């Protein structure tokens, strides 16, 4: 049995839990489900014996594992009732409140994931393509269509204040 080092678990939680929470929320629209993804991803990492060449490498691995876990979650049966272990858990983080955020969350998944990775994590179109196993053209199209849909949702005024 591989014993998990609590200091290593603490380091991972401190370094990546908020990022995985945000990324997973972007996919799943639920902070409770996003919290579950955090556990899944970190447990996989902690028990894999995986070593990384540098923090950027580790971060990319965590993102890719989280994306795949979210996709599987989306395909899967989702119980609406809280799981038993939730009774002893602290409440899940509160979802953010923002018009722009609400508009982004109303977009299809593929647009949301591209927007999150591009605008929040700062990955290039090429890097996003690699992370999501998509062509650069597809990622660019998702970003472009996502922006256009946001324009429709938020209205011109929200855009003109930036131009």
């Amino acid at each position: 049995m591989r014993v998990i080092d609590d200091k290593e678990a603490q380091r991972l939680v401190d370094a990546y839990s908020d990022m995985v929470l945000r990324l997973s929320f972007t996919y799943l629209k639920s902070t409770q489900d996003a919290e579950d993804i955090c556990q899944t991803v970190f447990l996989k990492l902690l028990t894999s014996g995986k070593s990384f060449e540098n923090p950027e490498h580790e971060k990319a691995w965590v993102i890719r594992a989280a994306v795949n876990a979210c996709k599987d979650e989306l395909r899967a049966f989702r119980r609406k009732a809280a799981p038993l272990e939730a009774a002893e858990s602290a409440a899940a983080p509160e979802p953010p409140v923002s018009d722009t955020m609400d508009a982004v969350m109303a977009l299809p998944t593929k647009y949301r994931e591209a927007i999150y990775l591009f605008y929040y994590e700062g990955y290039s179109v090429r890097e996003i393509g690699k992370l999501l196993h998509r062509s650069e053209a597809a990622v660019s199209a998702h970003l472009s269509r996502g922006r256009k849909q946001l324009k429709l949702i938020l209205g011109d005024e929200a855009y003109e204040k930036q131009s």
Partner: protein
Amino acid sequence: MKSSLKIDEREYCSALDSLQFSQDQKALLTQKLVSAGQEQPKHTRKPLRRTVTVALCCVLAVALSMTVLAAGLPDFRAWLFGPDSGVADTLTPVSAVGNNDGLSLEVLGATGNKNDVCVYFTLQDTAGENRLGEDMIVGASVKLNDEYPEREDVIEGGMERSTEVVKYDPETQTALCKYQMTTGKLWDNNMMDFASEPYDATGAEVRLRVKKIIVYTDRLEETPIDLSEWEETTETLPIQFVRVAKGVSYGEFEQHIEEDRVVPIDESEHDWEFAREYNRLAGEKIMAESTEEYYNGFYDEDKVPVVLKPGTGSFVGGREYAQITAVGFIDGKLHVQYRNYGYFQDTENFTFSFNCAGIKPLNLISFRLNDKGAVEEGDPQSPGDLQSCYYEEVVYDIGPEDLMDHSFFGQGCQSIDRWVNFMAENFTLEENTPERVQELLK
């Protein structure tokens, strides 16, 4: 005023910033991980073959480092500031270096004005391990005056940037690269808005960092595939299980599922894996909105989805990573299946895609055959998962009678990620004149 198609990224990022775990939640998450780890199965030991390979690689690396490239840098500096580069008049000579793990970085020249920054630098594999190449992607970033961009990795406020390989010398394993950035608007915390003008890079102190290098080791260019010559696969396998659903008894599961249609494959003590069919029979009420969206069109028919039974198939272009394993028709629609050799192989990547000219696929199914030979739908989640056989099956609205009317092709590549992290000494974007350039080059 013309509107730009940009989202209010600052508000979006601020909203996401507010989504975070409290310290108590983080402590509980850590505690759960440590507890859960005690229930995990033992990690599979890596095969000896891999250990031997790694050892041999280490020996080879040492041997290569003994013959560290004696040759000096190619004269990229002379070319850059000569008549052929076309940028000599605009560039200021710079001499800033950085080293890490047998790779060296040297900034040769830079230019910067109100909105644009351009930096020419060389990367050399001084250990002679052939970790660089002409056909590579360099992940670089620049920070100006230690303040712009606020987050080095984030593109915001209209910023644009790119890095390209201009020249490569295989003999000395040295690449000349060009980093280009158009600055965006800096966020003003007092105004709670972006500045009215893009960040002015004139005279800025520059920090150049290289984080990642992706080298392509093989490319399978667009290769025509004649499907009419393939032996049609007629056997299919049901897609059965998706994931573990906690807290639901098998009895409850059975109430919804006819046993002859779906069979459980994992009988672990606490969890049951459930069929995709369960999702559908359970009804839309318990399917999350995003799930419906994701599977739009997948549950059209009242039956368990199936995939073609994987066969041996053959390799496109002789590449092992381009293996088509089955071609056939299900419900009158063309299915083409190929091995997924691992976009999740961490540092070594294989990519293969199958396409039909002018036709978009109806669906793309990712699945694996588990050790009991059953089909589990889903993507690999870790490098270890790829010890199983993963496949992708693409579906087109093309019937057998229409097959000859379409042209198909495959393409792919093999690449290696080099994770590095080093930066050059800081330098300043100075104004220059042709006379000053010549003076500096002396």
